[in-house]
């Protein structure tokens, strides 16, 4: 029992224990003796434990209140210090919390689905591409044979025109198989989700709405049982999903049932399905992989024509984050750690300087009996309170900033909008605040104070200049310089990469060209002639608008996903250099109307553009790109050459310049343009032209309104989607990169400012501490220039040490980010030179003032104060 009480005593603050433990022991021992019987003893000890728990908490609270009161008085005397310390912590904690929120949502957090660890994504894999969409036939066979998958769903993006609810609207639909929702374990907010019964051929067409579409289109009104027309077909709304359900993309609007026709199952080269499965409980990913690889091998034997070298790729849904997005986020996380490190070292320097100023006060308190624990506790309270206030402000700013950074997260990722901070982020902020307050606040202060409690009582605090503190301050300076250089070099390299990417020639004109989405509903325009009539009408009227010089339609804009990669066959020539569907004998496809090349500013190198003669009854022709010619007829005249492409034999009528199809960072690839009238009725659904491009001197609101009117008159059910300039289309492609460079730039600017302040503060403080020594030197005849040089030298050595470490770490970081650097080498010398130069200038300017002040020290005054 005695031991129990000894343990209970440890609940009290040390000072309290030192003061009263003896007497408390005696009282408890007496009480124990007097307690009679088992129940009496038990009751007594119950009282002792309850009393210890309540009074110990009270004793701590008393101390905290005292400390807070003391802190308030002490901090009120130095408001400058308080504001700086809070601002510095707020910056560090705010930046780190912001980046953590993003990184957490995208890379760390478990996905918001039940049993999410068992969810996997599946692709077909061929030697050239490890992730290729599934064909319906292969999906069906894999699904029926795989035993390690509990459910296996497939989906494809199926944008559709929604009419009948106000303005015609282009919505981002997703066509899914019946197992889609059950695989994800998703429950509807209203009504029901799609299920296996909806897959039956006789089933009525039904749709499930996203929360966002339900709110924006129906204002949250009862909607179940209502009919919406999608691409001309009526669908009954059977459910609404909750707000946080957005799979497979953040902007998914509605889900309909994927319907496969007999044609879909006949052609195993028809790859357009994404596979999503849930592993059978008890099966590992590896087991499922092995099983599906075996199934794929069997399919390869059964269908050697189409499934040669076709295997399966399977990864966890959690890991389905594009490498670039992953790298960008880790890069930002690293940068935010740099900012936090700079903020923390700054805070530590501030507290160290303040600790020195407070030596005398602390020494007095020590002399009066305050124990070391008591003083640490006081410092802890003060620093945690400062960091806590900083953390609070940081968290508020993170909360405000995060929604604006959503553009960094690819829309295709299955993560919700990273918006308000939640419990995880709060805990993270508390942790960072704790580390900032304790790690960088109390420990350095106490380290510096070790063994000098009494020395502070002497007049003049020469003890403070002692080696240990000096070393600690030097270390803080070097760390700040290092972190700043790391940020400068990495953001510098990424900035250079951005400049390089942005200066790439896309191969078409970006100025003065407007792109207007006019997605014709396939169901209404199956006949080519009907479609041609629509395009002709819109184009004729658009071209007549004032200021419009050219107009045309295309199936896909450059830089936009779509178009597909199609096999090329040249009569009489054997395919070499590749196997299966995705060899080098491929090209991407675009259907266009006459005038497309002139509108886009794509130069015609040889032959002719399409014209009205290129219709369904004429000989099938094609215009090809220069890289197409280089690949297939490198030293020949391509005009008049024939090749098989897109289910028909075509003759080369013209050659145009290359354009960058898959973004500025990817090289040009062979392109085939086909005339819009030569799409056979009812085929090539996805390739119908649906982007109206027009070149106009001024693309103002009036012009857009006119175009809308023209489209409306041509077909009242045809929605007008996004209206953008081509410069915007290209810009969107580099948006994540620009946002990242912007963020890194902001971090770098912050860290430069912080480092500047930190360096200045530390050097100024160091000089003020050395007044006596400097005065003595001056009194002994040291020249002013010598004093200035001495102070500057000290800063230069520290800066050089920090910068060298920073360059080494920066290089390592750049190696990690190499794939984002687009042609800029991780060891790009000019970047490192500029970074080093900026830091050198910063350090020199930061120490110039203290150095000059040192040189102006009045020897007599300085010596008198010693």
């Amino acid at each position, binding site marked *: 029992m005695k031991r129990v009480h000894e343990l209970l005593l440890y609940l009290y603050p040390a000072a309290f224990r030192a003061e009263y433990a003896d007497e*408390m022991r005696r009282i408890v021992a007496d009480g124990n003796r007097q307690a009679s019987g088992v129940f009496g003893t038990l009751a007594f000890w119950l009282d002792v434990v309850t009393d210890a728990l309540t*009074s110990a908490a009270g004793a701590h609270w008393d101390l905290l209140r005292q400390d807070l009161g003391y802190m308030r008085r002490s901090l009120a005397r130095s408001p400058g210090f308080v504001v700086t310390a809070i601002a510095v912590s707020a910056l560090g904690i705010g930046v780190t919390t912001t980046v953590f929120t993003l990184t957490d949502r995208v890379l760390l957090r478990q996905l918001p689905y039940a049993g999410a660890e068992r969810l996997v994504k599946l692709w077909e894999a061929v030697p050239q591409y490890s992730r290729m969409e599934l064909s319906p036939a292969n999906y069906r066979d894999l699904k029926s044979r795989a035993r390690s998958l509990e459910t296996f769903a497939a989906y494809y993006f199926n944008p559709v025109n929604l009419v009948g609810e106000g303005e015609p609207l282009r919505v981002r639909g997703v066509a899914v198989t019946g197992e889609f929702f059950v695989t994800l374990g998703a429950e509807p907010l209203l009504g029901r989700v799609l299920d296996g019964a909806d897959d039956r051929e006789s089933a009525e067409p039904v749709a499930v709405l996203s929360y966002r579409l339900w709110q924006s289109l129906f204002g949250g009104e009862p909607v179940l049982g209502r009919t919406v027309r999608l691409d001309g077909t009526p669908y009954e709304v059977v459910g609404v999903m909750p707000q946080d359900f957005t799979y497979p993309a953040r902007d998914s609007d509605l889900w309909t049932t994927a319907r496969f026709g007999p044609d879909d199952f006949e052609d195993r080269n028809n790859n357009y399905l994404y596979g999503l499965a849930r592993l059978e409980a008890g099966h590992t990913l590896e087991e499922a992989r092995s099983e599906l690889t075996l199934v794929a091998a069997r399919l390869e034997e059964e269908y050697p024509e189409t499934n040669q070298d076709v295997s399966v790729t399977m990864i966890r849904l959690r890991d389905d984050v594009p490498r670039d997005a992953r790298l960008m986020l880790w890069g930002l996380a690293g940068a935010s750690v740099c900012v936090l490190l700079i903020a923390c070292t700054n805070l530590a320097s501030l507290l160290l300087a303040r600790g020195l100023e407070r030596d005398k006060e602390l020494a007095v308190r020590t002399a009066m009996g305050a124990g070391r624990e008591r003083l640490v506790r006081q410092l802890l309270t003060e620093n945690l309170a400062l960091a806590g206030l900083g953390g609070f402000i940081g968290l508020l700013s993170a909360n405000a900033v995060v929604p604006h950074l959503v553009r960094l997260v690819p829309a295709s990722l299955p993560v919700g909008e990273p918006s308000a901070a939640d419990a995880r982020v709060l805990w993270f902020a508390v942790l960072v605040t704790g580390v900032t307050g304790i790690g960088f606040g109390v420990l350095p202060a106490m380290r510096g104070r070790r063994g000098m409690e009494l020395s502070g009582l002497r007049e003049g605090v020469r003890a403070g200049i002692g080696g240990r503190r000096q070393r600690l301050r030097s270390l803080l300076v070097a760390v700040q310089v290092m972190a700043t250089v790391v940020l400068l070099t990495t953001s510098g390299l990424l900035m250079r990469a951005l400049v390089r990417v942005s200066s790439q020639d896309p191969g078409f004109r970006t100025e003065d060209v407007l792109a207007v989405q006019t997605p014709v509903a396939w169901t209404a325009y199956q006949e080519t002639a009907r479609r041609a009539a629509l395009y002709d009408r819109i184009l004729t009227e658009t071209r007549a608008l004032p200021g419009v010089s050219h107009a045309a339609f295309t199936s896909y804009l450059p830089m936009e996903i779509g178009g597909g990669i199609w096999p090329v066959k040249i009569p009489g020539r054997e395919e070499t250099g590749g196997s299966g569907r995705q060899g080098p004998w491929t090209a991407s496809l675009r259907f266009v109307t006459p005038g497309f090349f002139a509108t886009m500013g794509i130069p015609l190198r040889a032959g002719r553009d399409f014209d009205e003669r290129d219709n369904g009854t004429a000989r099938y022709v094609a215009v090809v790109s220069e890289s197409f010619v280089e690949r297939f007829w490198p030293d020949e005249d391509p005009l008049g050459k024939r090749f098989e492409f897109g289910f028909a034999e075509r003759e080369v009528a013209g050659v145009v310049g290359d354009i960058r199809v898959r973004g500025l960072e990817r090289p040009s690839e062979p392109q085939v343009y086909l005339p819009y009238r030569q799409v056979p009725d009812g085929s090539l659904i996805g390739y119908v032209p649906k982007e109206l491009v027009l070149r106009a001197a001024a693309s103002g609101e009036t012009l857009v309104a006119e175009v809308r009117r023209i489209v409306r008159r041509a077909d009242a059910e045809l929605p007008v989607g996004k209206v953008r300039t081509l410069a915007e289309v290209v810009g969107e492609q580099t948006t994540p990169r620009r946002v990242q460079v912007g963020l890194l730039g902001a971090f770098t600017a912050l860290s430069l400012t912080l480092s500047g302040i930190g360096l200045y503060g530390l050097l100024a403080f160091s000089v003020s501490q050395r007044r006596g020594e400097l005065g003595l030197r001056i009194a002994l005849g040291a020249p002013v220039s010598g004093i200035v040089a001495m102070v500057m030298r000290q800063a230069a050595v520290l800066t050089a040490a920090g910068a060298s470490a920073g360059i080494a770490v920066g290089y390592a970081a750049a190696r990690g980010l190499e794939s984002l650097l687009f042609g800029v080498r991780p060891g790009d010398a000019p970047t490192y030179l500029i970074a080093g130069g900026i830091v050198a200038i910063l350090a020199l300017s930061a120490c110039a003032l203290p150095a000059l002040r040192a040189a102006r020290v009045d020897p007599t005054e300085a010596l008198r104060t010693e």
Partner: protein
Amino acid sequence: MKYDAERLESMLPLPEATFHILTALADCDRHGYAILQDVAARTQGRFRLGAGTLYRSLQRMLDQGFIVEARERPAPEDDDERRRYYRITPLGRAVARAESRRLAGLVALARARGLAPRGV
């Protein structure tokens, strides 16, 4: 010594333990254990101070200036030098009086409503 009534008011109500300790110290200096015993005796064991509560209260009262440590100690044969003796200060006495008045006022109120017997 006169104390500003407003200042005294701001210290009320006193925690029960504080009031009992002040009462125990009203007639003579006592050490911690003696206070504990006095309180138990005067309340017939109805109010028992735990050791932790006692010393936490004593520490707070020292900080607030309600009590001080007494310099004079009993005769050596009665003394245990490890023990500390506490003495009530004029402030402690004033605040205890103020608390008594406050409690008496409450009893008077209750009496007026027939909640407390008259003449007690």
